């Protein structure tokens, strides 16, 4: 379960606003960001304008769900559904922090009810269902609520004959819901399979990071898989692989570019060209009247 790595990674440095004691102590919190990759300092407004891609080195920062949707769908076309679906605590999972606490702080932090936002929209005029995952919400892990929203997305797409475009990020299955989480892999895969039988297209965009049970279920069952530059995508996360094998990992192991080399994704597409590329693919795969 690669979720380990992501929990750890979150501790160190991902998308850290510059603050406190450092040499740039004067900069007000949240207004400036240091690039994880080139370490330069970027003004928040500039980052928002560049789709959260570092203007210096092209590093792709995480994108909050609604910002991602705005980047992807035709303006104003989103009609959200399932927004009231949120996690319960079926295992009464209590550890260092209770699951209930984790979820409620995620809600507060992200302004979302769950790790995925789903809705009807159009892209390049094509009617689609979109689902966008937000890593800031419990590592965009998949529990019952995420599984349900993804499943409904496929089901609604079938009944309304819409394409599917998912922007995926995830730390994996949501540990705190135990087997209920694991079974969401089978449930979403089953829904994807039913959707597939309808001859409608499914485009997945894998963003940084996509790991664990989400990679091993609906995320990789798409007709066309794109990945964002530098995105880490895999099943077991890199730290776990390193620990288990005691081998040095290959350069860029599990990066989008590595996956491309290994035949696992259709292409690596920079965020700036994503909407256009997705729209173009929909032109090919969504013909009036559906499947041949």
């Amino acid at each position, binding site marked *: 379960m690669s979720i380990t790595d992501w929990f750890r990674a979150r501790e160190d440095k991902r998308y850290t606003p510059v603050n406190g004691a450092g040499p740039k102590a004067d900069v007000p919190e949240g207004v400036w960001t240091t690039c994880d990759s080139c370490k330069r300092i970027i003004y928040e407004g500039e980052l928002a304008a560049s789709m959260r891609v570092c203007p210096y080195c092209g590093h792709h920062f995480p994108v909050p769900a609604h910002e991602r949707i705005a980047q992807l769908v035709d303006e104003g076309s989103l009609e959200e559904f399932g927004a009231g679906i949120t996690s319960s605590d079926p295992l009464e999972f209590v550890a260092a922090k209770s699951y209930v606490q984790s979820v409620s702080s995620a809600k507060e932090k992200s302004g979302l009810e769950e790790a995925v936002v789903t809705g009807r929209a159009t892209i390049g005029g094509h009617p689609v269902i979109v689902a966008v995952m937000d890593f800031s919400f419990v590592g965009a892990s998949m529990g019952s609520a995420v599984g349900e929203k993804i499943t409904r997305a496929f089901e609604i797409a079938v009944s309304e004959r819409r394409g599917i475009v998912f922007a995926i990020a995830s730390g994996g299955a949501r540990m705190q*819901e*135990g087997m209920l989480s694991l079974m969401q892999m089978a449930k979403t895969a089953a829904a994807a399979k039913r959707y597939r039988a309808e001859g409608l297209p499914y485009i997945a965009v894998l963003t940084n990071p996509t790991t664990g049970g989400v990679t091993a279920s609906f995320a990789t069952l798409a007709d066309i898989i794109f990945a964002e530059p530098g995105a880490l995508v895999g099943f077991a996360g890199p730290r*776990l692989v390193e620990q288990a094998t005691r081998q040095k990992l290959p350069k860029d192991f599990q990066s989008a570019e590595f996956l491309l080399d290994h035949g696992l994704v259709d292409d690596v597409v920079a965020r700036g060209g994503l909407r256009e590329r997705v729209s173009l693919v929909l032109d090919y795969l969504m013909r009036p009247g559906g499947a041949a």
Partner: protein
Amino acid sequence: MEFERPLFELEDKLDQLKRMDVAVNPEIAAEVEDLEQQLEQLRKETYEQIGPWERVQISRHPERPKTQDYVATLFTDVVELHGDRLFGDDEAILAALATMLGRRVVVLGHRKGKTTKENVARNFGSPHPEGYRKAMRAMRLAERFGLPVVAFLDTAGAYPGIEAEQRGQAWAIAESLSLLADLPVPVVVVGIGEGGSGGALAIGFGDRLIMLENAYYSVISPEMCAMILHKEASRAAEAAGCLRLTAADLIDFGIADEIVGEPLEGAHVDPEPVIAAVGERIRAALDALGEVDPQTLTQKRYERLRAIGVFEEGAG
């Protein structure tokens, strides 16, 4: 296993006493009797109160009956199928044509070894992508020729290796889930030991899930869960409790259908009746599912999966 240590210590003591000469030390007889009573009591306490973590340990017992034991005992005319026709043959997963009391089926199963050599060849039962792809090939044969599928789960999980990642194990697992989801033949799954995450799930759901009393099925190993929660794998017992991974938990969640009981100490102390009971349950499941037409079967399988999950829904 760790939790059995006090029991074994008492057994040792009793053994020593018994080896003494009663003629020389007549008081020993009484002491033996006393110890035997104590032992009986402790045995009861040990096994009747075993928790999830103890069950996980039992599920991993090296002498616990393995997929190959079930296959050898319950099936005849076994024709093993090898290879994914793409890259390799993964010995961590068994795929075979086999017959059970006249019922012809495709058997799948994780295959742990009993010896170190076997375990190395089989990667301790942790599949590579080739294993899932071999299983898929067998599933497609099952589909083409109308053979039910029987799958035995016993894996710590998918292998977190460089090559397994390079060759797309997530893709392979996802494809396998997708294939199983609407495979138009009965699929009976038996959790016989470990049910570790995606590596188990890839061949681990269907129309019926039978769990052995001490088999577990979990989204994550207790050790790794403990690492995440407490930064120490040693708190695995605690994590095992949190994860609700026992057969009984799975029944509660509507994921498993039935439990096959084991001897107090675990199936390894007396495997035959356990294996026979598993065979009986498989037979009954195949009989019942054999009556259902393929379309109803896959529809019910979908509804079954569709219903799994606990969440709240307010006004969106």
